[in-house]
């Protein structure tokens, strides 16, 4: 059987997850193996080289570029303080000297006798990596970071914006079909990860930011609201670095779409727990989907699976979800897998499957337009 289907997004109440927490450049790991960590615990830190500020020394000193190295009082890599004299001309008989002063605290990065430029580098900026999830340190990658492991529930979204954050999970709506509007966001949601139903509007997002909500997990989101919220049309789905005041995880897609019942029930059962979410999405090579991680002390009795496991292909009885019009969002199970391609309403010839929806209705659907319900 060819894999002519979209692997489903993972929604499970029981999973073992490992997250690598790495520094962008080499540094120091500050936790030990087997340490229990909380999301905001620092696990590794380093210093990023400071910004560079050039000085056109030849111009300022009114000398030729080639004379700049000889006029320097400070050499490359030496420390400098703001307003400190770092170069001086010989002047005329020791008089009329021109001086060059540092504009920042830092070091001398380079001195060029070709361009006459002196580059100053500001003091290094500290960078810290947090654990992001509650769990145990199970591996140390020397000088780079750690691997944190946790057991609990896991929900993969389809699209998100904003980066890593954490907070207590709270329900903003009572049913997966309900819309999360500004009126449903209260002061008690400050610091929370809020679960919406079928849609969150731009107004609700703005209210959530003003209230201090850290994240929202919702079924659908309108593209026109995304555009208004970001201030531009999103061309390519590479997100996660937006500084927008909260993190949004969309579980189903664009438009008003009821959150899958199973996802909603799972999140509801975890209300009150500490969760970590990340909106980062990359729909390209090395795909990244947004996620909701809910660490639990006690695992449900169902078997614990490792993330990333490929479970099965399409077969008769496989539970599936339609991911395109005209049945977008509906659930069903596979009842037939004809080998020969069929002609669709659009006139396109494609390999299809026959689905039986939960209400008993049957339809032929292109295999490309369904996703497996993973768990």
């Amino acid at each position, binding site marked *: *059987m*060819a*894999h*002519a*289907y*979209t*692997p489903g997004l993972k929604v499970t109440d029981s999973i073992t997850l490992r997250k690598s927490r790495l520094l*962008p*450049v080499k540094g120091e790991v500050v936790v030990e193996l087997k340490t229990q960590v909380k999301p905001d615990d620092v696990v590794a830190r380093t210093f990023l*080289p400071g*910004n*560079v*500020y*050039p000085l056109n020394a030849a111009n300022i000193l009114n000398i030729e570029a080639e004379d700049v190295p000889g006029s320097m009082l400070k050499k490359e890599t030496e420390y400098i303080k703001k307003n400190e004299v770092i170069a001086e001309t010989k002047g005329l008989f020791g008089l009329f000297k021109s001086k060059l002063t540092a504009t920042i605290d830092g070091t001398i990065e*380079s001195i*060029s006798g*070709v*361009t006459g*430029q002196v580059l100053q*580098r500001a003091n290094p900026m500290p960078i810290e990596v947090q654990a992001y999830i509650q769990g145990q340190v199970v591996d140390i990658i020397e000088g780079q970071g750690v691997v944190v492991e946790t057991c609990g529930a896991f929900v993969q979204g389809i*699209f998100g914006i904003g980066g890593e954050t954490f907070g207590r999970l709270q329900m903003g709506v009572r049913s997966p079909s309900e819309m999360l509007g500004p009126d449903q966001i209260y002061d008690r949601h400050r610091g929370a990860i809020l679960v919406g139903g079928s849609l969150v509007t731009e107004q609700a997002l703005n209210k959530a930011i003003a209230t201090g909500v850290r994240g929202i997990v919702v079924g659908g989101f*309108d*593209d*026109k609201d*995304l*555009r208004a919220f970001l201030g*531009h049309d*999103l*061309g*390519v*789905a590479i997100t996660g670095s937006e500084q927008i005041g909260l993190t949004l995880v969309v579980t189903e*897609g*664009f*438009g008003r779409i009821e959150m899958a019942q199973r996802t909603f029930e799972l999140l509801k059962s975890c209300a009150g727990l500490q969760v970590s979410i990340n909106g980062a*999405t990359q*729909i*390209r*090579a*090395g*795909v990244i*989907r947004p996620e909701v991680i809910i660490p639990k002390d006690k695992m449900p009795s169902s078997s614990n699976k490792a993330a*990333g*496991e*490929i479970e099965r292909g399409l077969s008769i009885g496989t539970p599936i979800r339609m*991911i*395109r*019009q*005209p049945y*977008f969002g509906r659930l069903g199970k596979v009842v037939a897998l004809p080998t020969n391609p069929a*002609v*669709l*309403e*659009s*006139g*396109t010839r*494609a390999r299809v499957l026959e689905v039986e929806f939960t209400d008993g209705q049957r339809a032929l659907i*292109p295999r*490309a*337009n369904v*996703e497996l319900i993973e768990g």
Partner: protein
Amino acid sequence: MDPEKIKVILATDCGSTTTKAILIEKIGNEYRQTYRGEAPTTVEAPFEDVTMGVAGAVQELAELSGRKLIDEQGRIIKPCQNGQGCDIYISTSSAGGGLQMMVAGVVRKMTAQSAERAALGAGAIVMDVLASNDKRLPYEQIQRIRHLRPDMILLSGGIDGGTITHVAEMGELIAAADPKPRLGMGYRLPVIFAGNINARAEIERCLQDKTDLSIVDNLRPVLEEENLNPAREKIHDLFLEHVMAQAPGYKKLINWVDAPIMPTPSAVGSILKTIADQKAIEAIGVDIGGATTDVFSVLKGVFNRTVSANLGMSYSISNVVAEAGLGNIMRWLCFEMDESDLRNRIKNKMIRPTTIPQTLKELILEQAVAREALRLAFRQHKSFATTLAGVQQQRTIGDTFEQISSGAGLVNMLALDLIIGSGGILSHAPRAEQTAMMIIDAFLPEGVTLLAKDSIFMMPHLGVLAQVHTKAATEVFEKDCMVYLGTCICPVGQSKQGRPVCRYTLELPAGNTVEETLNFGEMRLIRLGLGEKAKLAAEPTRNFDLGQGKGRRIEQEIIGGTVGVILDGRGRPLNLADDKKRRIEKLREWMLALSVYDQKALEEKGLVGAKAPAGAR
């Protein structure tokens, strides 16, 4: 392997959305393409291994052909034995996403712009152009480099023997930024220096230790001359080496194949150039994929190629809307649609890129987006065509500062003989008329132009096959790959609706003659089948040109195809009505005249009112 002994060839093309496999078999004395299979490309989790998509596509091919191609260990069976397996396996790949570059030069309108043209021509998305005179302070430029994290940087600047200081300054800025590549921590950022030869030592001093520095010939050796090819070739090499190799499973695929994996665009370009040279024609080819759209042309014997890295029909569909504007997409819809609904549908396609349109409405919407993606990609190609020619471009000192239009000269639509469309949306359109209409609306051919499509998108496979077995590639291209759609006749000019544009006579092979007048704003279709030829005599009215000058008669033999002879009286440039109601009326009229969509299905779905097609015969 001895080419004579090759009887069964398996070829795959790993696109960013779909992996396509074809089987080519020697039947009697000739090679023919026999079966085709496809599967979603598996760069996504949980697979994250491009070879699984290959196995999926090959497995589908095996199911359809009844020939076992993969053994129990998941390996391709080679060589062919007892009716199982294949003799050689070859592949192309465009998985891995786009190439994101920064370019830098000394003067924004001169060396920096030449560098930009070189990078764009090589298929990159240019994230930013740095120049000594770009009005940003040096620390702002440094912060920009650090923030953007490009895949590579192209640094130019100074003519040979010219400024060293400013070039060295740009080198110092890059060194100070100490940029890290976007993908992977395991390698240093590739930087290509293509500037003043006298500045090489300074650049080496600044960048040798901090980056993966390559030095190529100056892309602007003198003020009046451009030499972009060395820089472009180096960009291609580094792209394959660094960016494409990041696609999960790519290294494994390399071990499976019997010939080096070619990037899909290079393979398509290679086969197009071979054919245009053989037939001595001017041709344009387009390959519209999920993430990128490539345009190739062979004009005046010169091969050009551009890659629009973020114009495509799945991963990049939303970017097409962002670049073209929603209004430009909606202008091609022959029905009213809520703007918000349209936006959401497009975004849903972007986040689930492997889905296909099941309903007619969704198909029409995707084809509207395709028109804009093709139009934008062609516009880019026209702007950069001459820069890709690789020939040194002579300019007088007087037009040195007027760079923008310098690349536009090569594309002359009236002289163009052939347009070939390729890529899923064109090759797999349910009706050939849809492919023809998309090509016409996007490329706006002028005069007399032959239209063709790649039947099942096998130009990439044949491009790589041509490297190992030219005979098989050429035979399959002629017999199974290229499908002529027909000839488009479009007089160039403007007039009022309904006024005569041209009087034409077509002597059809059955012996009958069509003698008619084409009016402004009309489209007509005269069926002329595959392999059939007709004699055309056309006399445009005095404001219209068919290639021989305004009002001048043309006579020539034209070729039919799966669509036939399309007479386009809409004029050039094409102006669609601003009034939505009138525009929709005209679109419906044209679509019905050319049988673009099934009239009954359109009516049933309430997408058009009942109306007899006016121009169809």
